[in-house]
Every structure is written in C-alpha cells, then in structure tokens.
C-alpha cells in the first residue's frame, strides 16, 4: 500500500466526541454473540436448585434418596454434604446451602446435577423437605420491635457444633442477638444551630419500593475442575478479580488455582457485583461430579432469587431560611435488608453523599439501620441508593421553595455548588458543571414558564393535567475508593502490522467499555478503531481491576489505557527519531504513520516501523503496561474524605400528563443536562443516557416487585411491568463539558447518573400538575388515583426513634 505518496500531509483529526458504533454491535444485532446460555462443554451436566417453599421455617428433614435414584442424576447435594461450606456476603451471614433454617422463599435447600435440565427438574420434585414454620417478619419496622423473632439466632445444631466457634465467628455460625444487619451514622455541622436558624422546616417520610434489574441475560455459571484440581469458571460477574479472591476463601483454595472467564454478559446494572449461593453451589456440584456443571436461571428464578434494589423507608427533615439558603438536613432510614446481607445494606455510602453534598448544606445528620426480615435481599443496582436519596431531597427542595415563595430553579441555583468547593463530607469538586446543568435543562425545557402556567391551569376543565418537575443529582464520576485499590491495569501490544491488542482488566457488560477504551488508545496512537482488539474477560490474562461499579470504567480503565498507549507512543517515537535522525519531540502519530508534528508530513508508515523494529539485530516489540490508581482517598471512620477522583452532575426536567380519571401518568418529555466532563463516544453516551432515563422511568412509574408477606407475587414480565417502546418519552439531552483535569481526555463517569433523578423529577411534575404530593413509589395508576382522591396512605417511620441515639 503506497498511501504516503498520495497523502503528503496527514490532517489532524480526533476520535473524541465522534459517534462510534460499539465494537460488539454487529455480533449482537446478528444474534451471533455466544452468551453463557449458548455454551456447551464436553461432558457438561446441568444443575438446578431446590428452593424453600416456606418463607421462614426450621428444616426438620431433607430426603434426597428418590432424587439420587433417578436415572441421569449425577449429584444431589444438601448442606449435610458440604460440611466445609463458608458463609458468603458482605456480613458473612449467608451459607449457600441451608441445612437448619430457611429465612426466605429464595433459600437454597438442595441442588442437583444431571444429564439434562429436564432430569434435574424432575429430580427436584422427588426431594422431600419437612419444615416447621416460624413466625414471619415482612415489615422491617416489626424487625426492631421488642421480642421480635430473630432471623439469625444462634444456631442450635443437634451436634452442638456452634460450641467450637471462635469468638469472632461469622454471623452464619454465631448468630445475631438482634435483627440489625448494619448501621451507619454520619454528621457534619451544628444541627441544632442550623435548625434554630431555619425559617421553614419540613419533615416527611418517603417509601421506596422493590424493583429488580431485569437483565436480558439471566444469571448463569459453568464451573469445571481440571485433573490437577484447578477451578475454571465461566461467569457473568462484574468483578472477576474480587470474586477470584473470595471464591478462594470460600473453597479453601489457593487463589492462583482459580480462573474466571467472562463470556459476553447480557447486562449487569450492579446485579453481578456480589457472589450468590448459586455460584458456590454450582462449584460444589462440579467438585462432586468431576464434570463441568452449568447452571442458568429461568426468568422466574431470576425474579425470585436475584437481588433487588434496596427498599427504603426514609424520614427527612430539611430546613431553609427565607432568603433561600439551605440550613440543614436530618435523615433516618430503615433499610429492609431481607434475610441476608448483600450490597443493598451498604447503599448509605452513596445516600449520605447526596444528603451531605448535593447542594450546599451547613449541617447534615444521617442515620441508617438495616434490618433482617424474611423478604428477598437487596443488592447493588445502578445508582446505589442515590435514586432513593434524590427522591426525598428533591421533593423537599420543591416544598421548601414553595414555602418561601421562591422559584424552584432560583432556589436550587442559590444552593448549588461551584468548582473548587469542598463539602462537609470532604468531597472536593475539582470540576463542577452543576449550575450549567440546572440552567441548561431549565432553559431547554422552558421549565420556569411551564411550571408557572401549569399551576394556573390545574383547575381547568378536563381530566388531563400537565406538569413539569426538576431534579438534580450528584454521583461519583471518577471511581470510588472502597477497596484497598480502585485501580485498573492495562497491557498493550502492537503487532507487525501496527494492530493493537488492548488487554484490560475492565469488564464489558454491555456498557460499551471496549469501544471507548479502544477510542482512547487510538487517539494516542493515531490509529483507526478497527486496529484494536480488546481482551478483557480472563483473569489468567488480564491485569487486575476492581470491577464494573461506581460508574468507574471509562474514568479508571480509560486513564489506564491512555497510560499504556502513551508509553507505547513514546517508545515508537523514540525508535522513529533514532532511525530517521530527528528529534522525537518533532514527531507524532497520525493516520497510521509517524509524521512530522508541525506539518503532518509522513515520516514512516507505522506498520513498517514496527516490522523494522522487530526484524532487526536488536529485535524489539512494542509492549507496554500501565496501572492507574486514581488520586482519591479512603473515607475516615466518620465517612469523610474525597472518595472519588471526580464527581458527575446532572439535572433532569420531566414533563408529564396526569389523567385524573385513571391516575395514569404519561411521561411526555425528559430534558436532561449532564456534566460528563467530556463526551468521548457520542453514540455510546447517548445510548447510555437514554437507557438510564428509561430505567428511571420504570422505577418511577411502572416497575414494582410486589412482595407480600415474604412472597414475590409477580415474578414474570406479565405482571412486573417494564417500560415498553410506546411509553418512552421524547428526550432532549445536553452534555455539559466541564473538562475534568484528571479524567481521560477530560471525561467523567456517567453510567449510573441518568437513572437517578427521574423519579424525583416525576414526583415534582405530578405535584405541579395536580397539587398532590406523593411520598411513596412507584407512581402506578392506582397509587396516583388514590393519592388524587385522598386515599393514599402517607408513609410512616417510627422505629428509628427507638433504636438509634
């Protein structure tokens, strides 16, 4: 190819901000992507789990003899067969197989590995379990009442094995003398003084419901031991390196003998951030069968046994002065932990940030108690508590503004932060486009005029009322230093044809990380996107990464990829300078060539240079590594500290039509302004924001996992209502480019942001339309209709006053 002769000068160009198709799009659109569901290993068995048929009960006996006798069944396991099982989860309160007691309907009692799914199913039906029912706690407020039944009492095994426990034994072995799973307490400022200075104070309780992720790809795993006892897992996890270490602990194995390969993952949204019993059980089955064992959930099982968003009862007191200055916020929340502790219980980490630092608040006092119940347990879910916190705060912002007769936008602008501020919680806003988000979203939606007009027209004839509501959010945008490291490693190599293999620790779970990381590398190396192959799914190959969470991948893995690419570039330019007798600072990479930086004149084709380097006396390849650790810090014991390297902001304005005859709320338009630092892949970020808005819309209007006395009543897509195409509102999205100094090319994380404000803004819009404020989600037609007719029950929260100081 003799390109150089035709193109004497290569024009400067950039990939940043362009609309770049996701690298995996053609495969997915063509149905060719091979998910874990599609994988078949030679000799593979199929596994199914027998779950409890009681909400809370003592297990009297389990009889698996008939199941074991069924032809085609290879292994049947109960807790008795794995005496070495270790408790999983954040609080180590969860044994994968339950032998003594079931605490919720999702609880695993036995598991079968068989030649086919059908045989495994048939075997489950042959297992006899005798239960002795125990009293059920389904209302978290009951869990704290004196004399409430204990969900995790000290085990009373007939063998008295608990007597051998060490003093600090995990809850699963030692029990818990109360139903309190976790507590969080945070404070800054002088609450009493701030309250005394307030002209207006509101106190309200908000109720946030159960929803679940509904990933298109349901949970699944294949586990296999080789002849040397090494474990290979094909897993959908979002956090392979953390899991490798945890599995090693649970299985008493050397972590170096565990390898995790992630097949393409059909969505995560936080659901694949914890280890679940099914994964450990599948490994037990594979160990017992000495065959690969595959376990994939049915959709119903996914609804019943995968985690939910954290349901919360939350009392918020907020105050302000007549001039519109916020004075304080005091918060007590009761988190329904469910029967076991997963990440849901730790959502206060994020919630308190929003209470302490979304808007300037001189005093903030925050308390959470997470309690055990017999309900499904909550995990992490896109937004991680922030939807719940923002729902309460932004309704109070509107209520305070109305009470002091101030325009809601003006009130927010008066209390919004600027770049350079440090909050009471120690978050440093190095870049901050908050005010621009507020004004942009308001202007583009004509918020102020519509807000005034809608109030005037509330009393007009006709059943349909129009409303507009505003809400904003603050979320980590530069990772979150929760673990010892919040870093990500990259290995980068160029081959003889100047094609790049980018080996990154960052997992692709559908969010588009492969594409954006390729883009960042190509921007440094002057190559087209097609020149990059990404390897990102094998712990035996990829360098360490903490995982996909906290909207961190573009920021952390992006900086890591740029670091490796810059090192490669330096090496290339040095080699080119030496070979062509010029100064390396006068050279650059562009369009597949080494060029003269000032004129764009090609010096040598990059592929040719690579071959010259390789096939020479001093043979050399261009291979670089980089590990990026963000300059964030761990919080202190009071939860203070600059936990993220950057913070993302957004304002969303939601417009609704409320049909007062039916209570149905139609979301007609969402106008969003997002401080994303900088747009990298415009197509990708638009998709991520549109998808996030729809997820927020579902949370606000239609999605509701109905849990009734511990029983999930709608474990299917017929009765669990996801938003479908006809209801998706018109969207007008603006990007505020605050050019974060630490971000890759100036970008900040955006993954979680778009879901966060929708429910809060919808609540304000419904109030604007009807004059009725609703404190509980979701705004289903019946809930709204009841509220409009004064028949809504206002949420109450009493328990915290008894249990916290």
């Amino acid at each position, binding site marked *: 190819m003799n390109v150089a002769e035709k193109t004497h000068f290569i024009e400067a160009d950039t990939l940043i901000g362009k609309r770049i198709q996701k690298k995996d799009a053609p495969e997915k659109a063509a149905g060719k992507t091979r998910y874990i569901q599609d994988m078949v290993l030679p000799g593979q068995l199929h596994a199914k789990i027998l779950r409890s048929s009681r909400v809370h009960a003592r297990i009297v006996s389990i009889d698996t003899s008939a199941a074991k006798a069924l032809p085609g069944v290879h292994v049947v396991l109960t807790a008795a067969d794995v005496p070495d099982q270790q408790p999983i989860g954040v609080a180590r309160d969860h044994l994968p197989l339950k032998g003594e007691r079931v605490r919720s309907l999702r609880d695993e009692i036995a598991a079968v590995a068989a030649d086919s799914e059908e045989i495994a199913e048939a075997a489950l039906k042959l297992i006899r379990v005798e239960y002795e029912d125990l009293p059920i706690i389904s209302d978290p407020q009951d869990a704290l009442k004196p004399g409430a039944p204990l969900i995790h009492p000290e085990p009373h095994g007939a063998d008295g094995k608990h007597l051998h426990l060490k003093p600090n034994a995990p809850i699963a072995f030692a029990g818990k003398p109360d139903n309190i799973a976790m507590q969080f307490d945070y404070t800054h400022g002088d609450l009493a003084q701030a309250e005394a200075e307030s002209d207006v104070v509101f106190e309200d309780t908000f109720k946030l419901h159960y929803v679940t992720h509904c990933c298109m790809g349901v949970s699944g795993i294949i586990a296999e031991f080789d002849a040397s006892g090494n474990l290979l897992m094909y897993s959908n996890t979002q956090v392979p390196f953390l899991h490798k270490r945890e599995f090693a602990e649970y299985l008493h194995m050397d972590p170096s003998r565990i390898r995790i390969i992630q097949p393409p993952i059909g969505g995560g949204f936080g659901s694949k951030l914890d280890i679940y019993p099914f994964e450990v059980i599948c490994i037990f089955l594979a160990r017992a069968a000495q065959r690969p064992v595959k376990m994939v959930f049915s959709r119903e099982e996914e609804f019943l046994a995968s985690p939910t968003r954290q349901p919360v009862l939350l009392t918020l007191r907020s105050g302000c002065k007549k001039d519109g200055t916020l004075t304080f916020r005091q918060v007590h929340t009761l988190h329904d932990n469910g029967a076991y502790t997963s990440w849901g219980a730790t959502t206060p980490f994020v919630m308190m940030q929003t209470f302490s630092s979304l808007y300037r608040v001189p005093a903030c006092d925050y308390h959470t108690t997470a309690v055990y119940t017999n309900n499904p347990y909550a995990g992490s879910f896109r937004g991680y508590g922030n939807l719940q916190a923002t729902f309460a705060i932004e309704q109070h912002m509107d209520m305070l503004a109305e009470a002091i007769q101030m325009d809601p936008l003006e009130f927010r602008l008066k209390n919004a932060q600027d770049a350079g501020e440090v909050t009471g919680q120690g978050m440093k806003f190095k870049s901050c486009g908050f005010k621009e988000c507020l004004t942009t979203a308001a202007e583009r939606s004509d918020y102020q005029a519509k807000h005034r007009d809608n109030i005037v027209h509330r009393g007009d004839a006709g*059943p349909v009322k129009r409303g507009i509501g505003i809400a904003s959010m603050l979320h980590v945008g530069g990772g979150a230093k929760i673990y010892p490291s919040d870093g990500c490693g990259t290995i980068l190599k160029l081959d003889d044809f100047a094609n790049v293999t980018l080996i990154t620790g960052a997992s692709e779970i559908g969010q588009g990380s492969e594409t954006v990381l390729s883009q960042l590398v190509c921007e440094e190396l002057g190559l087209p996107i097609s020149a990059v192959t990404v390897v990102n799914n094998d712990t035996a190959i990829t360098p360490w990464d903490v995982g996909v969470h906290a909207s961190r991948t573009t920021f952390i893995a992006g900086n890591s990829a740029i670091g490796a690419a810059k090192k490669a570039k330096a090496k290339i330019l040095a080699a080119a300078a030496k070979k062509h007798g010029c100064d390396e600072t006068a050279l650059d990479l562009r369009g597949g060539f080494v060029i003269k930086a000032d004129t764009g004149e090609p010096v040598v084709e990059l592929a040719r240079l690579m071959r010259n380097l390789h096939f020479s006396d001093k043979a050399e390849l261009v291979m670089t590594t980089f590990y990026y650790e963000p300059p964030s810090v761990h919080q202190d014991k009071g939860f203070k500290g600059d936990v993220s390297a950057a913070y993302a902001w957004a304002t969303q304005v939601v417009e609704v039509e409320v049909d007062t*005859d*039916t209570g*149905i709320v139609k979301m007609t338009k969402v106008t969003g302004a997002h401080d994303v630092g900088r747009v990298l892949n415009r197509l990708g970020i638009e998709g991520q924001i549109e998808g996030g808005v729809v997820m927020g819309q579902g949370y606000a*209007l*239609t999605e509701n996992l*109905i849990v009734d006395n511990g029983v999930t*009543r*709608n474990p299917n897509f*017929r*009765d669990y*209502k996801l*938003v*479908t195409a*006809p*209801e998706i509102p018109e969207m007008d999205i603006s990007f505020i480019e605050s050019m974060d100094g630490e971000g890759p090319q100036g970008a900040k994380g955006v993954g979680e942001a778009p879901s966060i404000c929708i429910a809060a803004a919808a609540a304000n819009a419904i109030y604007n339309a009807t004059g009725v404020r609703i404190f509980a989600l979701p705004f*289903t*037609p*019946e809930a709204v*209709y*009841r509220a409009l007719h004064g028949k809504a029950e206002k949420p109450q929260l009493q328990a915290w006053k008894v249990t916290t100081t």
Partner: protein
Amino acid sequence: MTPIEQYLAPATLDEAVGILQQGEVTILAGGTDLMPQSKAGRLAIKRTLMNIRRIPELKGIALDNDAIRIGALTTITEILNDPLVKEYLPVLADACDHFASDQIRNAGTLGGNIGNASPAGDTLVPLIVLDAEVELASKPNGSVTTRRLPLAEFFTGPGRTKRAANELLTAVRIPLPKAGHVARFFKFGTRPALDISAISIGIAGVIDNGVISNARVAFGAVAPTPIRAARTEEALEGRRLDEATIEAVASAARDEVNPIDDVRATAWYRKELIHNMTKRILDHVAQA
C-alpha cells in the same frame, strides 16, 4: 405434567372433529396462551396434542349473508388488517390494536382468544357487544354437525366455556351492524399495549335522532368471565346521551360490576375505572 403421547396435525375439519371425538385432546392453534400456561403448570396438556393450523375451513374473513364470519384460525394481525373488519367492525379492529405485541398478534388467533376464556381477553368484550355468536363443530355420530351459541352465554368461568370436549370452535359470526350503529372499546392497563387489562369496556348501540336503542354494554376483568351488564344497558336503552343519562349509566356500571383484588388492581380501583371510563366513552360518543 404427563408427557404428550401423540401429536396430530389434521388437514381437514372432518378429520379434526373425528380426533376430538376420541377424547383426551388439547387443541393447539397459535400457542400464545397454551405454551406459557402449560409451562407454568396452570394447564395440563392432555394425551393428544392436536395442531389445527392446517385446516383451511378455519381460516379467513368473509361476508356470509347478513353477517361477517371470521374463521377461528384468523390471527389478530389478519383481523387488524382486514378491510371488512375496518369497514363494518371498527371496534374489533380497535381492540386488536391494543392486543399484546406484534409477535403475539402474528401468532395468536381469534378462536384461541375465545377458547382461552380469560376474563380479560381483549377481543371478547367487543365481540359480545357486537352480538357475536360462536360456531362449534363436532362429529358425534359419524358426520359433522355444527351449532351456534351467543358469545355472551359461552363463558362459564376462567378458562371454562360451554364448548363440549368433542367440539371445535370453528368461527365467529357477527351480524352486520345496522345504520347508526356505534361501538366503542376501552382497555385499561399500565401500558398502552402488551398488558393484561385491569378492566375493559365495550359499549354499542344504534343512535337514531339522538336516542339509543339496542344498547349493549360488556365488561372484562371484573368477574370470572367477561360479562354483559344488563342493568347498565337498561340505564342506556331508549335514552338521549345527556349529562344525567351518562352519569346514571356510569353509576349503574360501577354498581353492577363485582371485581376482585389482585396484583393488577384492587376491586375499589376497578369500580372507579369502570365508572370513569364508561362516562368518558359516552361523553366522547355524545360529542361526536
């Protein structure tokens, strides 16, 4: 679940009703209700699974004297696109336009929607107010005989009808509407389509000089079967659609239905919807 012992796909009506006569048969048409229900364990497939999709007599929409005959195998999509339906039975087309998703409409059949006998079946309420009859064929004594039943009397409970085990639902016959005939359908679900009705309403009648006659009112998802509402019809029959009549009809409707609480709605809310939406439908007719 007992395993299916035989699968049959007859090519003629005669053959099909002959198979039914032998007993223990589950009929498969579009499969959009049968498959999820059998998978969920709510419906047991009998010894013989009979696919009726190859039977030509069960297909097509045609004028038949003073009626429109719709074959049981006609899909919801075919009804939606049919010129006869558009011209004479727009209320049925409207109901089909709120029916599930495109994929389900392409597979699901009218006969299946009726045979499934869900209290929330989307085509049932409009067909009832159109005075539709079902046509049932059987072969009791070696030759095919048919009988007809008004659809309003066909349903006996959720999933249950007056179809005998040896009968095949072959078609629906709908009398051609008279001049001045008006019919409306309303379905309430959380989503505009792809949703099970919390309630549905069908109202029809002939308007002559502003006066309504031949009033028909039917409701879905408020009783074990779709129901015709006699007292509501009475409140409407022979009246002009003024404000007082409309309120009286809407109130009669609310009093007449006796729905239940379930995951989709409470009984109270269903009654409110019946009132408010009956009123809205009649307001729209009055204004038109």
